[in-house]
């Protein structure tokens, strides 16, 4: 028999998974969009990280001969 605290913790995780699954849909319906709005509120804005940028150079350039 699950203790109430266990049940609550488990249920919370299942709920969060179900919400997440709704945000993974490619053609979201109304509830899916609500889920996405909720998720965005939880995660906050993500500013651009310049560390992820690579200088735009010809991809055919090789490291050989440097």
């Amino acid at each position, binding site marked *: 028999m699950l203790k109430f605290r266990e049940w609550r913790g488990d249920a919370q995780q299942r709920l969060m*998974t179900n919400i997440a699954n709704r945000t*993974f849909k*490619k053609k979201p319906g109304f509830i899916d969009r609500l889920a996405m709005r909720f998720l965005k509120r939880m995660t906050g804005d993500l500013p651009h990280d310049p560390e992820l940028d690579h200088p735009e150079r010809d991809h055919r350039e090789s490291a050989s001969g440097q």
Partner: protein
Amino acid sequence: MASAESSKSSEKKLSYSVCTICDIGCQLRAETENGKLKRMIAHDNPALARNVCYKGTAAAHVHNHADRLTKPLKRVGERGADEWEEISYQQAMDEIAERLQKVVDQYGPESMAVSTSGWNTQSTHSMDRRFMNALGTPNYISGVSLCAGNTAAVNKMTYGWFPFADMANSKCIVLFGHNPRKHSWTPIFNMINAARANGAKVIVLDPRVSDQAEVADLHLSLRSGTDAAMCLGWLNVIINEELYDKAFVADYTVGFAELCERVNEYPLERVAEITGVDAELIAESARMYAAAESACIPWTPITDMQISSTSAIRLQSILRALTGNIDIPGGDVFGGFDPNYIPESKLGNHEMLSQEQKAKQLGSDIHPAYTYRAQEMLSEHTERVYGYAYADIVMGCYMANPSATFRAMATEKPYPVKAFFVLGNNALMSYPNQHQILKGMMNQELIVAHEIFMTPTAMLADYVLPGDVFSERNHISDYWNWKLGMTVSQKAVEPPAECSSTFEFWHDLAHRMGFGNLFPWETIEDVLDYRLSPTGKTFEEFSNENYMYIQPPEYRKYRKTGFATPSGKVELKSSVLEELGFDPLPYYREGPAISEEYPYYVFTGVREDAFFQTGQRQVKVLRDRMPSPKLFMHPVDAERQGIVDHDWVKLQTETGEVTAKVLVQASMKQGHIRVPHGWWYPEMRGSAKLAGSFISSDAVLCPDDPEHLDYEQGIPHFKGFPGRIVKLAEPPAGMSEQVLAG
């Protein structure tokens, strides 16, 4: 469907990808233009958008690289001379099949060995094992034998599965040497940060003041290679102070009394002496872990690579169990097989290989832990709990021992291994004792490599087949059954010229070898349709609807099913190890001692941000960030040796030596030297033997004769073996300007 089916379209397109530049599998988006991969960018789902590093965003530079292999090659010079002629795919496959058959006819099917890594090749769908099992060879080796796969196998002995730490929801995270950073292990780094923001404590056990140690609640700077002793010290505190979950221990474990006896052999004073950590700090950290509302010990590659690795891995499992942190939110969660996706364990067809052939698996006589011999002792229990007899979690549970395999290749004992197939894996530099690996490869009658770049390993091959990359194929990743979830990776562009997938390789070879009926799927999409059949959807249907799906979690499943072990309980005393003739209780074994001649503890196998293992040194945008290999040493040690930052040195052990630059770092533990993993010099191709793969590669340093290996698994002691450092008067000859300057 958002993927770029029409690759010649002039439109810009975005598709969803699972990145395999490293082994983490972050979800990114591929932007294509005119049928060409333009760039990789972060995901648009806010839950996934942070999981991106600069290696992932460099994928276009990797996939479009000028040095990428695009045509099948056949060796024309001496083995290793790197001289080739281009041939057609059909000719290559025909000749490979003919020559493999010849080897099998002469030496038996077990004379074929395969080294691969699903991390790199992603879409093999266990077709390698399926092929091998049909042919009759058990000799599969993989980098996961040193990293995660072996942990999976050893975890199964204790409680039947390999749990994934629910870090994001945890109240206490314990990192044994593991150092997730923004650009390495990025999702793990993000999960730890999320937990920390939610009030979680973080305990780091690492000789170095690593990035994670800097911000940890407690940092224990233990001597490298002493994880097992530290865990025994924690257990001593947790048991003797009665901090364990008594109900769980009573109901779900066996061997507690015997474990207590063993643990009492390791009082804190002894553990403090072994680890070099103050006894009070050991006790405080053990109490913090045990008292947390939920706590997890995420998998760590550090514990994987020690002479007491089996015991240390088991001890971490035992800590999880004794503190009641198994299969709970915030603890270590047992995912099980995803009911929506047929697992690779099934596709591998392990039932097909006869017991007679399984018994020939190299290394299983001395070091059986992750071989068929030990893992099949769990089969009926795995089937009872998880529905399949074989649980090849992270593809690491039915492997031959790499050291025994390369020894057999070199010495032909206990029997000859004469055909070596290596796919997506720079095997020469990926296992211990590189000199022996070279000797073994030079003694082969057939070597086939399937690669995206010409690596030192591929240079030793008879045939090199050009591989595809993740942006060029459809896939659904299931995290190798480690955690529940299915993520779609869409084909964004066509593979160039004659590049093909590892699935196609095994499929086409099987048809030529006469058992094509076992490979009824014509395309990767056919395999994906089959694997998705429990959902009633095809790949196209599934990927049109979702880019990801996570099976909602179910916790404490053991209350209904028991554990997948012979006793049905958590085996603190392992019946499998006992039956195999090993100590069934965990213990600490000291690694090789330092001496006046070799006064430093060397640790190797360290991953750097810019690269995954031995890869990507030819990719300029990554190489610019890390131009040369750097050893780390403490300022006191450096001063004693007369060494300053950026001096060139040789690090020598009884087994070999590497040449590298030094970075003097106060964060290092005194008396320790850290060596980065996997350095070679693609730019030296043609001017140095095997592109400089014997200059700076850490794989030459560590011995792998049986007495230097972990008893049960045969794992080398990469974390704390003796070495010395010699300052070089001049930089080594032949290095590029970038290496000299960087």
